[in-house]
């Protein structure tokens, strides 16, 4: 059996079986793994080998060895997360992570260290119940598959030999350096070129291995799974939006296939018995945060292994770029030499020219002068075992923001490490050294080395630091109050949701982490099989993917395609008729399913356009919303009316079943009055509540297609209109006034018009501050931020700011709220409110917003009167017996945490 890798990029040739995605996808499988790096690939392959059907989702694309062309300008954009532009929020540390099939294992330097014994003991004390024997077995297992072997003497390049020589001659505090040796790496025979039995030593590891000798996940575990006998599918270019869950069961994964610009092309819904998050540190925390998983520890405790560098300049050519970049390490000052807290490794490394140019902290002529000596440098990095002091938070745009400041102890380790390394280069004959501190980029003599340490301590911002090992954010522990997952990597509070990657590390590892991540994945896969949740039933959710039963989620082109191959159900024609009432009557022509947030509205058939994001369709969706309503005339025809929501047009029509060549039996909807009688619709009833339609201009059967659309009498609350929202808002049956406690948390809001529910427009935070004062903070489109005063009384949850408008909320569910931002609409004479009244208001201790509201009224600062239906906007007017006449916006709020 041969499985397939899917993606949205069209390529002429790929090493593995590859197909291009051309439609939305729904998959029901045993296991869904998110992320294809060191953990995800192993989990996917091992669970697949255990007989489970597996879907593997990867944000990046599939690029095989032959497409890795060793050019930084091409490959960093394609293989690195965010095209390499990945930083802490303060821009002080650049974080390198892979974003491609195989993840960071495709772009790393293939260095393999086992988890140090010291770290095993420390983690055991922190509640990680994995014994040394378990670690050893798992390390053996994965090392065997990825061919871990020691770098040979012949494979050491000149750059590594310089570090070895320096370790041999330098004395630190009068003592020789003892612990230093060659690394182990995962290289081996290439499956695409039988002539290559091991590393070619080209030096381009960071840009993917063109020769397929680096035994990354792409050419080992993923390759194995693709060519296995079990149902395995890898979907690339897939950005997971969220994990859905209910009552401690993770039910599914919603994702989008995105192009290189980040635009959604298609969607995917994966329903699975077991869901595993292995998106890597930072991305895994971000996904859990986006998925509204209530664990306050998510995102906490991030470590980065921050790594400054020091280069020695030598008279002779070193050609550091030639050969294996990372093959030698000085362990003397690190956890591998039993340093319990902090510490650092000095690792040989070299960079292709663009990356080195980014690292050298100078500019202009100086930078050019230093770069001209590229072939004469020996380079090594100081990889510090830092404290997990970082945090990951979610931005307004749902992206992860990394908050991290170098701790004092970490700076001390950096200062010590860089000083030692500078000394080492001088000891073996360097005529000057280059540092990664902008204040002191060059050191000409040994006597100047103390200036480097001082510069680091005095101006840490001047350091140019990189990180390739983000760890933490979802740490393992035994206490749910302090950790995110248990030792099985299962999320606290969930039966079938796992997180397995470097994000679960409770502290920094102190060595390059890929082998430890792989070993953890191998252990976790075994545990998942042993504790298989047989009683979990795979959900049948379609999520928000296109399907004939929910065409409002489809692209316009797909609507046309579905129309072509879907048969009209003639027997349903008699059920075309809508309610006789002209208004919503709850429980008669309008119902609401609170559990599924589904609206059943038989007042009319609500029209929907495709979900495309082009200007034309977006415009139609925003401003061209419509409904059609039918009344029965006789046994074979209905009279109809089509009403655009925002335009005073009522186009009469006649609906009859007919046979049309090429279409079979359809409903012909002919408009009757000029000028609309030049148009007609062809409709197919798919089920009692769903219609697919085509609008034509011209003679029936020969007309020009105008557009495809769908209509429904049953739709999700994400497609509600103003009438639906108002019905929910004023209905005690469906909503209630929330208490302050019920609203605590973060909510995302979308504006509601008849035509469309907008994308996220605002975020509201309700919380108690330290002194138990209740606060509400708003953020509109990341542009307008501020605080509002909340008052809950007389069954009204209300908040005010400095405008004459105020907000009112009604809660539908603990995670779903409807709201209105309104102001009085009746034009009261200014004389009804006097300065004296204002004074009384001030004296009575009224709130600031009440006073400002009064000022508005005194000076008659009102917007001009508008008609009831304003059109082409979200602004609406309501006339309510209790509230009076009001104007404003309507919105829905969904809980974010």
């Amino acid at each position: 059996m041969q499985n397939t890798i899917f993606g949205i990029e069209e390529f002429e040739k790929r090493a593995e079986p590859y197909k291009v995605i051309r439609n939305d996808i729904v998959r029901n499988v045993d296991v869904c793994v998110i992320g294809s790096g060191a953990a995800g690939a192993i989990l996917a392959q091992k669970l697949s080998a255990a007989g489970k059907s597996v879907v593997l989702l990867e944000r990046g694309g599939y690029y095989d060895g032959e497409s890795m062309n060793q050019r930084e300008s091409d490959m960093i954009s394609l293989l690195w997360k965010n095209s390499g532009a990945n930083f802490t929020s303060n821009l002080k540390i650049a974080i390198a992570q892979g974003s491609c099939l195989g993840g960071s294992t495709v772009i790393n330097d293939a260095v393999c260290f086992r988890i140090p014994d010291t770290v095993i003991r420390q983690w055991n004390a922190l509640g990680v119940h994995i014994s040394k024997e378990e670690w050893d077995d798992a390390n053996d297992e994965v090392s065997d598959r990825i061919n871990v072997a020691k770098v040979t003497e012949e494979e050491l390049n000149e750059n590594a030999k310089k570090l070895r020589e320096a370790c041999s001659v330098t004395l630190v505090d009068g003592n020789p350096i003892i612990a230093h040796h060659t690394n182990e790496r995962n290289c081996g025979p290439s499956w695409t070129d039988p002539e290559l039995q091991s590393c070619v030593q080209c030096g381009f590891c960071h840009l993917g291995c063109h020769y397929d000798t680096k035994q990354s996940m792409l050419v080992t575990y993923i390759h194995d799974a693709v060519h296995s006998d079990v149902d395995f599918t890898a979907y690339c270019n897939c950005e997971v939006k969220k994990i859905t869950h209910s009552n401690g069961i993770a039910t599914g994964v919603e994702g989008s296939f995105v192009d290189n610009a980040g635009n959604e092309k298609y969607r995917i819904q994966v329903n699975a018995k077991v869901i595993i998050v292995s998106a890597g540190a930072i991305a895994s925390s971000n996904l859990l945060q986006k998925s509204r998983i209530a664990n306050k520890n998510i995102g906490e405790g991030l470590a980065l292994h921050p790594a400054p560098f020091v280069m020695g300049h030598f008279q002779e050519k070193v050609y550091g770029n030639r050969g294996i970049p990372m093959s030698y390490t000085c362990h003397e000052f690190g956890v591998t030499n039993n340093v319990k807290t902090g510490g650092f490794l000095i690792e040989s490394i070299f960079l292709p020219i663009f990356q080195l140019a980014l690292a050298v902290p100078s500019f202009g002529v100086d930078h050019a002068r230093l770069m001209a000596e590229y072939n004469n440098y020996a380079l090594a990095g100081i990889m510090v075992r830092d404290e997990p002091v970082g945090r990951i938070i979610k931005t307004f745009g749902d992206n992860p923001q990394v908050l991290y400041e170098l701790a004092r102890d970490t700076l001390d380790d950096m200062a010590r490490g860089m000083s030692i390394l500078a000394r080492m280069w001088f000891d073996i004959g360097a005529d000057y050294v280059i540092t990664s501190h902008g204040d002191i980029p060059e050191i000409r003599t040994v006597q100047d080395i103390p200036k480097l340490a001082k510069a680091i301590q005095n101006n840490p911002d001047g350091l140019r630091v990189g990180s390739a090992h983000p760890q933490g954010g979802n740490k393992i522990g035994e206490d749910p109050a302090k950790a995110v997952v248990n030792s099985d990597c299962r999320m606290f509070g969930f039966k079938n949701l796992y997180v397995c990657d470097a994000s679960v590390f409770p502290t920094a590892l102190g060595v390059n982490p890929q082998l430890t991540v792989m070993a953890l994945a191998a252990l976790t896969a075994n545990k998942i099989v042993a504790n298989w949740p047989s009683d979990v039933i795979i959900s049948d959710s379609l999520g928000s993917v296109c399907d004939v039963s929910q065409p409002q989620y489809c692209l316009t082109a797909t609507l046309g395609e579905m129309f072509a191959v879907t048969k009209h159900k003639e027997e349903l024609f008699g059920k075309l008729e809508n309610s006789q009432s002209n208004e919503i009557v709850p429980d008669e022509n309008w119902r609401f399913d609170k559990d599924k947030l589904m609206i059943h509205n038989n007042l009319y058939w609500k029209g929907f356009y495709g979900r495309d994001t082009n200007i034309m369709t977006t415009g139609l969706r925003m401003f061209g919303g419509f409904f059609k309503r039918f009344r029965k005339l006789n046994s074979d025809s209905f009279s109809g009316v089509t009403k655009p929501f925002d335009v005073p047009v009522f186009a009469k029509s006649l609906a009859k079943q007919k046979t049309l060549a090429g279409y079979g039996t359809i409903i012909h909807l002919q408009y009757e009055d000029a000028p609309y009688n030049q148009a007609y619709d062809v409709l197919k009833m798919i089920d009692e509540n769903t219609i697919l339609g085509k609008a034509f201009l011209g003679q029936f059967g020969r007309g020009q297609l105008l557009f495809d659309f769908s209509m429904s009498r049953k739709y999700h609350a994400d497609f509600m209109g103003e009438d639906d929202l108002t019905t929910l808002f004023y209905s005690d049956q469906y909503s209630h006034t929330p208490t302050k406690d019920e609203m605590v948390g973060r909510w995302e809001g979308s504006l509601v018009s008849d035509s469309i529910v907008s994308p996220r427009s605002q975020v509201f935070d309700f919380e108690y501050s330290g002194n138990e004062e209740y606060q509400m903070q708003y953020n509109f489109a990341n542009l307008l931020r501020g605080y509002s005063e909340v008052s809950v009384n007389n069954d009204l949850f209300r908040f005010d700011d400095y405008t004459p408008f105020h907000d009112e909320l009604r809660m539908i569910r603990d995670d779903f709220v409807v709201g209105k931002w309104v102001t009085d609409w009746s034009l009261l004479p200014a004389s009804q409110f006097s300065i004296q009244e204002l004074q009384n208001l001030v004296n009575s201790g009224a709130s600031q917003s009440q006073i400002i509201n009064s000022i508005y009224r005194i000076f008659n600062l009102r917007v001009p009167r508008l008609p009831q239906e304003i059109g082409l906007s979200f602004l609406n007017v309501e006339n309510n017996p209790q509230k009076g006449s009001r104007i404003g916006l309507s919105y829905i709020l969904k809980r974010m945490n």
Partner: protein
Amino acid sequence: MSKLFVATYAVKGKVQDGSKLYVELLDNDQHWFDDRIDDLLGSAWTDNSGFFEISFDDSLYKDNWFEGKPELFLVIRDNLGKIIHKTGIQSPSSPDDTENITFDIAIPDNRSLADNNPYDSANTSRIAAFARIGDTINFTENIPNSTRLLMQTLNAWLLYTNETKWNLIGYDGPQVERYPWRHTHSHKLKWNNL
């Protein structure tokens, strides 16, 4: 001149593809004006062997009195309605008779793979990346540092992704062609021959 005789046509064919497919028969109209479209004359699902048959008469395709023979072509869709193939045009020999027309359709195997390379979209990725980091960094927290980083990145990009500059410095550069899969190439490193 009106016609008393209605010509009928039977279009038969076989699609050489294992799956069940939907076949649409269309008349190719001259697209002189924007408001003209191809006439859909009929449709059918293929049977288990890939055979299909669609019949029609000339009233379906004659948009005008001067329109003569139909110019027939087929659109093949998969079970989701996705168009996977369009045939060439066939015209019946005589428009005034009942006539059988046969299509023998082979769907090209490589229909999903265009002649693209992955690097064309690298610039788009970079631009999108810079747009995205605007949401995750506090550029104004340390403006001198941020500006310096931006300038250094631009400087490095403009100079050190440039092959001329590599040659001046003596940087070995990539060891394979830019589009390696398009050329037979060696996996030997150039510097081993120096």
